[in-house]
């Protein structure tokens, strides 16, 4: 066991190294660059025996990962914002062709106007590409999730690519203590990837051929079923990780919800700041808790329904916006509850776009406004907007 004080970006690099990735194809972009910088050093020193491919764009980075994965290699890349957007076509390819590639995306607001700071619109815009999405809230979780993501994605029942996501600067450039288990123990947890179908001269196959309407539909059904099956695999892998290393993970993280009347629905680092707010509000007598959505795809509908059935009010805090609609976690939460016989009112708050700082006081004031019935229902509550 090694404990180190490291950047969130380097937690990704160490996680990829300890997962013994075999191919890394990457293109630099702020605030991701440190991830692949350190990985290139690992490759140069021989500490990591992987092929590092420098490419001319993010689109090519993902294309190279697709090729590597098709050849049966464990493939990895990292990107952010505009880079992720440029990959869009290849993201569909990776998922449709069932390549269990793992990628780190550093959440950075989309330009213009240029911003290097965090919000979730880059990854949320890739919601429907068929990638699993894990939103991380600490550097430790970033490291742990990188390793788990390979195990989840490479599972026979899943065979889909996965994206682990961390906030620009608030995690990427923040140093925190990260505990890294010995390599042998990670090797036991995550054995080498054995592709069931791969490019093989001795056993030739065609990949990505033409599919007529008589079967394409069935493949989409199967792709979706795999996402649904991933719900259980994510929990199984998170539990096994916990049993081995003492840190448990699942689809959601619940915090002080047992007797809660109000539950905040949050994600990423906002969830950590919100825990502080929950503790302070509890001291003031408010019965409040939170649920952090760690896995956004597949969406943990059942978990949300179960929590909603016991509370008087839910407040979804989104660091993203679907223009013309509302915060996306808000939409998804409400949709999960719509057909329930009884459900609490669900409020939606938008906060922190483009890296606007989210403070404990913000979360406390949102909760208090909710408690006093001062949040607007069926409308976006724009927190702190100066217009």
């Amino acid at each position, binding site marked *: 066991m090694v404990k180190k004080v490291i950047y969130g970006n380097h937690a990704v690099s160490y996680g990829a190294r300890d997962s013994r990735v075999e191919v890394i194809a990457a293109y630099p972009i702020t605030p991701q660059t440190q991830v692949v910088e350190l990985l290139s050093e690992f490759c140069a020193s021989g500490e990591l025996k992987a092929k590092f491919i420098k490419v001319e764009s993010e689109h090519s980075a993902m294309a190279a990962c697709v090729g590597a994965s098709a050849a049966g290699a464990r493939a990895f890349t990292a990107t952010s914002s505009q880079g992720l957007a440029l990959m869009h076509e290849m993201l569909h390819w990776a998922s449709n062709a069932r390549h269990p590639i793992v990628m780190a995306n550093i959440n950075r607001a989309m330009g213009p106007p240029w911003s290097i700071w965090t919000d979730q619109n880059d990854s949320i815009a890739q919601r429907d590409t068929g990638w699993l999405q894990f939103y991380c809230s600490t550097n430790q979780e970033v490291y742990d999730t990188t390793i788990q993501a390979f195990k989840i994605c490479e599972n026979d029942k899943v065979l889909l690519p996965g994206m682990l996501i961390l906030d*620009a*600067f608030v995690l990427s450039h923040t*140093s*925190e*203590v990260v505990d890294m288990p010995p390599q042998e123990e990670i090797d036991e947890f995550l054995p080498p990837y054995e592709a069931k179908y791969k490019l093989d001269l001795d056993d030739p196959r065609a990949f990505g051929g033409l599919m007529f309407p008589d079967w394409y539909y069935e493949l989409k059904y199967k792709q979706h079923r795999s996402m649904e099956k991933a719900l259980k695999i994510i929990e199984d892998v998170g539990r096994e990780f916990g049993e081995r290393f003492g840190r448990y993970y699942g689809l959601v993280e619940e915090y002080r919800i047992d007797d809660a009347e109000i539950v905040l629905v949050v994600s990423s680092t906002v969830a950590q700041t919100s*825990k502080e707010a929950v503790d302070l509000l509890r001291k003031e007598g408010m019965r409040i808790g939170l649920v952090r959505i760690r896995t956004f795809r597949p969406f943990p509908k059942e978990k949300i329904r179960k929590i909603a059935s016991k509370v008087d009010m839910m407040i979804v805090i989104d660091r993203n916006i679907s223009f013309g609609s509302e915060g996306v976690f808000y939409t998804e939460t409400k949709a999960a509850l719509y057909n329930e016989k009884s459900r609490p009112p669900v409020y939606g708050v938008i906060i922190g776009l483009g890296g606007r700082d989210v403070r404990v006081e913000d979360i406390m004031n949102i909760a208090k406004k909710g408690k006093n019935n001062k949040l607007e229902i069926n409308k976006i509550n724009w927190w702190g907007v100066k217009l």
Partner: protein
Amino acid sequence: MIEIRFHGRGGQGAVTAANILAEACFKEGKDVQAFPMFGVERRGAPVTAFLRVDDRPIRIKSQIYNPDIVAVLDTTLLEAVDVTSGLKKDGTVIINTDLDIKDIEIKAKKLALVDATKIAMDHGLGSKAAPIVNTSILGSFPRATEMVSIESVIKAIKEKSPAKAEENARAAEDAYKNTRVFE
């Protein structure tokens, strides 16, 4: 929880200072969180970095608005930036300066003055135009506060210095001996 804000200019090593001090406190069993003001750094422009240190796991992820300790790496910043903004009532300010205490207008419960520029030059750190003062100012922390020992600071400097580890460590020791504390 102790919250610290570093003020420097791009190139002086304020962000590295926060990271090295984090390492020193981590060595003493604390949980730590160090981060830059989330901006684009330019050489010579004001830079802010932050550090949280606690016995318990640190969860809060926002910037620091009410620091317990402020460290100023460049005297000229005293005129350009409100370095004591939000400083706690019983807060400490550590300043790199060759000025006498009577010429310092900063108000704080505790003031610690160190001529980190001279110390950096004495140990060959940076150039006259751009001295690298971050490790010297770190030597003042164990003198001005109870939060960390000089031994841990020196150990962290030796491990984390990208270059001239020994010179940086000696600069910190020098600063530790030559920091003037006023309460």
